[in-house]
């Protein structure tokens, strides 16, 4: 048997049928999860700055102490699973409720700043796009080994910005292409 990994294909415009709505997870952290509660609003925009109404965002994050719960159920049975999934609305946006993750061990002696691993899927996206959400103003960002790989002028594309009007709310714009294009990673 050929063990080359199976190729990716787009989720297409009807992804909601199989992946979201009843199967959506907007709360990454349930009640009682330790940590600073945050609401993250993603806005997905195309190469002309138009909102993308048929994308899906998936999140994978550590808990407030920097541990990943890979052995833990993620769909409501336990307070914290670390996984979230939502389709974008007509305005290209969706909002998750979670807790701010802790620092995570990095390669060798490094420490990764609090971050959330983000997948973007959608019509016109032939293979999953991977990026990371970091928090603007976080002191640990300066020593983050992954941010250090990103040209300085593009780093701001990975920083969620606090919404001054609503404490605990952050905004993360994903520019798929063109001006202000978000940094995507080959993971």
């Amino acid at each position: 048997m050929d063990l080359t990994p199976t190729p990716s294909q787009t989720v297409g415009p009807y992804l909601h049928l199989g992946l979201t709505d009843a199967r959506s997870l907007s709360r990454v952290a349930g009640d009682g999860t330790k940590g600073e509660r945050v609401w993250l609003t993603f806005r997905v925009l195309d190469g002309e700055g138009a909102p993308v109404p048929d994308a899906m965002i998936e999140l994978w994050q550590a808990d407030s102490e920097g541990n990943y719960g890979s052995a833990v159920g993620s769909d409501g049975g336990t307070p914290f699973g670390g996984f979230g999934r939502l389709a974008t609305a007509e305005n290209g946006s969706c909002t998750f409720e979670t807790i701010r993750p802790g620092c995570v061990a990095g390669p060798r002696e490094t420490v990764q700043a609090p971050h959330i691993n983000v997948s973007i899927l959608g019509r016109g996206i032939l293979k999953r796009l991977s990026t990371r959400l970091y928090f603007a103003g976080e002191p640990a960002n300066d020593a983050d080994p992954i941010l250090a790989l990103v040209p300085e002028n593009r780093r701001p594309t990975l920083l969620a910005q606090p919404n001054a009007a609503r404490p605990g709310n952050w905004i993360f714009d994903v520019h798929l292409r063109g001006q202000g294009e978000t940094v995507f990673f080959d993971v």
Partner: protein
Amino acid sequence: MSSSLVQSKSGPNRPVAPFRRHEPGTQPDSLYPPYRATRLRAPSQPLILLPQTLSEVTGPVFGHSSVHPNDRDLTLQHASEPLGERIIVRGRVVDGDGHAVSNSLIEIWQANAAGRYAHAKDNHAAPLDPNFTGTGRTLTDNDGFYRFVTIKPGAYPWRNHDNAWRPAHIHFSLFGPAFVTRLITQMYFPGDPLFAYDPILQSIPNERARERLVSKFDLETTKPEWALGYRFDIVLRGREATPFEREER
């Protein structure tokens, strides 16, 4: 902010066993202009190579508590059976070393036999079937096998270019053990004359890689007097050999 300054309890930075990168040509490029929607949605900048960390080699365990036995038989989800050709789709999920990916969620969705999705945005002039939603889920067993019963989806037009039709397909979504093993793909049916005209399938440069998305008719899976069987095996990324394993070879 104080929470983010807590040091990780994950230990003194254990080295992680990374997953192998894809061979060139075996996955689609993000930008494939014949598939029109990629022109405004594919990044123009090269991806930045990320050395895999704990964040990439861990992944969610999702869906286990909510999978129903009926979820894997798409013909039993309504009052009556859906119209169309009943089929069985069966296969095995393994990683790049041939090891079973066991107890892992697979989600599928598809059009009905007439080529229409039960989705508010699908306005193709083909009938909906009140007995077919087109959504399924299951977990792989201990040996990585899965099995769905469904009906064969129809081809449908999609306006990407003049007289554009999608070959019949079933969407598959898999998680595997890590953030980097997440895979969403489409399964096709053998011998479909639309393959050559479909930019979504043709976006994969390597012909052998494209063929891996085409299921095979399988007499062993076929159930006498009841339904044809198709076999669709899926390979997720495997881990790179550890230094220890390399010495062993």
